[in-house]
C-alpha cells in the first residue's frame, strides 16, 4: 500500500507546486474563505517583520498566531511553500496510518461481536469485509490531499494546515493508544486554536475502550484513567504556554490569541456565522451573544458523548465537523480535515438520505462564494446579505451532511442489533424513523 500512497503524494505535491508558480496563488491568498485573521499568511509575515523591527508582534491587532508558530517560521520563512507542502503530506500520511489501524480495530470488534452473537441473523450484507476496507486509508489520504479546499488552503499558505497536521497526529496517537502523545498533540492543537478542547472527550472514550475500561461512573479505574489523561493534557498545555512566555518574555500572546478567538473583535466576512450577527448587533448585547455563540461550539460534546460512547471515532468525526462549522473564524482548511474522514464511513452510503442535495448545495455554494463576493465588494450591486445567505446555506449544507451521516450511522447500528427486516408486533413491515 505504500506505492499508491507515494503516487498520490507525488501528484498532490505536483498540483500544489504548479499552483504556487501560477498567478492564481496571489488571488487565492487574498480570498476570505481561505485566509481568516487567525491564520492568514500575510499576518504571519507581518508579525515576523514587526519582530525584526523590535516591536512585539502582538501589538496592534495584526498577528494572532501562537509564539511556537513564530519560532517555526523564523527559521523556515524562505522555504514557506515547501513547509506547507510537507505539512500537507504529513497530515495525509498520519491520516493514512491512523485509518489503517482504525480499520483493524473495527474489524476486530466486528469479529468479536459476531462471535458473541450480538448481531441479528439477517444482517449479512451490513457486515464489513477486509476486502472492501482495504482501500479506505488510501482513499482518505487521496481525499485529503486532492480536495480543492486543501489545495487552496495550502496555496494560500494558511496556518490552518499546521493545525490540521497537529490534529492528524493527535488522531494517529489516539488510535495507536499512546495517552502521552495524544495528550501532547491535543495540547498543541488546543494551544493553537482553542476549539480542539472538545476533542478531549472522544479521545478519552477511545483510549478507555482500548484499555477495556468500562465507562461507568462507579468504576474506579475509569476515574483513575480519566484523571491521568486529563492531568497529562493539562500539564502539557501549561508547559507549552509557559514555554511560549519565554519566547517573547511577555504574556501578551494570551489576549491576542485566545482573547481574539473568544471575543471575536474582527468582523471580516468569512464562511462562518459570527461576522454578520456581530456586525449588526448593538454593543449592549454583544457580550451575551458572544457567550451564546461560543457555548454553542462546546455544547454538543456532552450529548454526543452520551449517545456515541461506544463509537468514539465517529464521535471524533462529528466533533471535528462541529468545530469547523461553529468556530469563530472557520476557513475551508478546517472543512478539508473532516471531509477527509468521509471515506471511512462509506459503508453508510445506502442509509444516507440527502447526499445528492447536500453535495449539490456544497458545490454550488463553494462556487457562489467568490461570485457574490465580487458582486458585493467590486460591482456594488449586491450587499452583505447576499454573501451571508451563501454562508448560511453552506453551513446548513455542512450541518445536514453531518447529521445525515449521524442518522445513517445510528440506523446501521440499529439494524445490526435488530435485523434488517423490521416487523411490527402484528407482523407487517416497520419503518425506522429518527425521532
Amino acid at each position, binding site marked *: 500500500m505504500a506505492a499508491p500512497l507515494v503516487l498520490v503524494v507525488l501528484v498532490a505535491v505536483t498540483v500544489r507546486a504548479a499552483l504556487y508558480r501560477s498567478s492564481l496563488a496571489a488571488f487565492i491568498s487574498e480570498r476570505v474563505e481561505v485566509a481568516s485573521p487567525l491564520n492568514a499568511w500575510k499576518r504571519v509575515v507581518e508579525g515576523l517583520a514587526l*519582530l*525584526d*523591527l*523590535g516591536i512585539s508582534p502582538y501589538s496592534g491587532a495584526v498577528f494572532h498566531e501562537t509564539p*511556537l508558530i*513564530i*519560532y517555526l517560521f*523564523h527559521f523556515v520563512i524562505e522555504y514557506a511553500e515547501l513547509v506547507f507542502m510537507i505539512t500537507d503530506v504529513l497530515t495525509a500520511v498520519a491520516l493514512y496510518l491512523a485509518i489503517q489501524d482504525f480499520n483493524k480495530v473495527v474489524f476486530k470488534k466486528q469479529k468479536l461481536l459476531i462471535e458473541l452473537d450480538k448481531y441479528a441473523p439477517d444482517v449479512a450484507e451490513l457486515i464489513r469485509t477486509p476486502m472492501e476496507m482495504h482501500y479506505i486509508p488510501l482513499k482518505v489520504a487521496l481525499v485529503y490531499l486532492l480536495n480543492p479546499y486543501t489545495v487552496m488552503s495550502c496555496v494560500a499558505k494558511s496556518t490552518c494546515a499546521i493545525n490540521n497536521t497537529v490534529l492528524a497526529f493527535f488522531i494517529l496517537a489516539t488510535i495507536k493508544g*499512546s495517552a*502521552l*502523545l495524544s495528550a*501532547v498533540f491535543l495540547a498543541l492543537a488546543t494551544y493553537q486554536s482553542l476549539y480542539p478542547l472538545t476533542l478531549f472527550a472522544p479521545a478519552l472514550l477511545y483510549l478507555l475502550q482500548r484499555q477495556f475500561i468500562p465507562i461507568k461512573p462507579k468504576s474506579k479505574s475509569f476515574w483513575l484513567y480519566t484523571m491521568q489523561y486529563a492531568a497529562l493534557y493539562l500539564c502539557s498545555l501549561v*508547559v507549552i504556554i509557559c*514555554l511560549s512566555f*519565554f*519566547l517573547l*518574555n511577555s504574556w501578551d500572546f494570551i489576549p491576542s490569541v485566545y482573547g481574539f478567538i473568544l471575543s471575536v473583535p474582527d468582523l471580516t466576512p468569512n464562511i462562518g456565522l459570527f461576522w454578520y450577527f456581530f456586525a449588526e448587533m448593538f454593543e449592549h448585547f454583544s457580550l451575551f451573544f458572544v457567550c451564546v455563540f461560543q457555548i454553542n461550539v462546546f455544547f454538543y460534546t456532552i450529548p454526543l458523548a452520551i449517545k456515541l460512547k461506544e463509537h468514539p471515532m465517529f464521535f471524533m468525526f462529528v466533533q471535528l465537523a462541529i468545530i469547523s462549522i461553529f468556530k469563530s473564524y472557520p476557513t475551508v482548511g478546517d472543512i478539508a480535515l473532516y471531509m477527509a474522514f468521509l471515506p471511512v464511513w462509506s459503508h453508510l452510503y445506502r442509509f444516507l438520505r440527502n447526499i445528492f442535495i447536500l453535495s449539490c448545495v456544497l458545490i454550488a455554494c463553494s462556487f457562489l462564494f467568490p461570485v457574490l463576493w465580487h458582486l458585493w465588494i467590486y460591482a456594488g450591486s449586491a450587499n452583505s446579505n447576499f454573501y451571508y445567505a451563501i454562508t448560511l446555506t453552506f453551513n446548513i449544507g455542512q450541518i445536514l451532511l453531518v447529521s445525515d451521516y449521524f442518522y445513517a450511522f445510528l440506523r446501521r447500528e440499529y439494524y445490526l442489533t435488530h435485523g434488517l427486516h423490521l416487523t411490527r408486533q402484528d407482523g407487517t413491515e416497520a419503518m425506522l424513523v429518527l425521532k
Partner: protein
Amino acid sequence: VCTSRFWFNYRHVANTLSVYRSVKRLGIPDSHIVLMLADDMACNPRNPKPATVFSHKNMELNVYGDDVEVDYRSYEVTVENFLRVLTGRIPPSTPRSKRLLSDDRSNILIYMTGHGGNGFLKFQDSEEITNVELADAFEQMWQKRRYNELLFIIDTCQGASMYERFYSPNIMALASSQVGEDSLSHQPDLGIGVHLMDRYTFYVLEFLEEIHPASQTNMNDLFQVCPKSLCVSTPGHRTDLFQRDPQNVLITDFFGSVRKVEITTETISLDRDVAGFESKFPRDEVATEPLKYAEQLPVAQIIHQKPKQKDWHPPGGFILGLWALIIMVFFKTYGIKHMKHIF
C-alpha cells in the same frame, strides 16, 4: 456655486447666474470666476424658452445671456471638486479655467445656493458638505495664503449654520436665513412654471444692479438688503473674523474688479543709461570656488546614520526548553532503549 439638480430647482441656477452676471458686469473677467452649476436649465427639455434663464417674472431679465462660461457643470459639481477648487489641491491636468488661481492679495467672493439644513449644504441630492468641512477648507486656504479677504454668501434654508464654524481670519459671511428658518423663493413665473429666484438673492440682485464700478456703497448696506418684511426669513451676517470695519469695506472690493488708477499729468522719463545703476553694486572681488552639489550634501554621512537593524532571534532558553521537552516526550513514548543509539 449652484448645488441643486432638476428642473424645479431652476431658481438656484437663476440665483447663481444673476450673481455671476453682476460680478462680470462690475469688471471681474471669466478667468477669475469659477462658476459651478449642477444642472443645465437653459437647455433643459422642460424649458419653454430654451437658451434662457430668467430672473424676473414676465421674462424681464435673461441672466443666461450670450457669454456665460460654466467651469464645473452637471455631475462635476461635487463636494470633492468644490473643496479641491478652494484648497488648490487639484490634479496637475486641471485646466486653468477650473482652478482658483488666487494668492495672498486676492479678495474672494464665494456665493453658494441650493438646499441646506442645520450645518450642511446638499450637493446634487446625493452628498452633503458640512459647515465643519467648509471651515476647515477656509483654514487651509488661509494657511496656504490663498486669500486676503473672503466674503461668503449663502442662500439656503438655515444658511446661518454654514458660517457658524468659521475660525480663520478675514472672513465675512452673509446668509439668507437663521438656523431653524427656511429661505423662501420669490415669485413663480406662470409661463415657465417654476419659481424663478429666491427672495434673498432677488433683493441682492436688485441691490447690485445699482452698483457701478465707482460706487462707494459699503458692506453695511448689503447687510440691510433684505429685511424680514420682504424676505420672511431673517438674513444674518458674521463679521467678527473680519479685521476691517464693515463700514469701510466697499462692495466693489468683492463684487467688482476695481483697479486703483492714479492719473498724473506730468511725464516721467525712464533713464536709458544703466551704467550708473551697476556701479552702485560693486562686484565681489574675492573669487570663491564654485560649490559642487556633492559637497553641499554629505551623502556618505547620511547613509551611515541609521543604526544597523539587529535581527530578532528566539532566546536560547526557549530553544533549549522546547527541544528538551520534545526529546523527553519522544523517549517516554518509545522507551529509553533508543538512548544508546544516540550516544
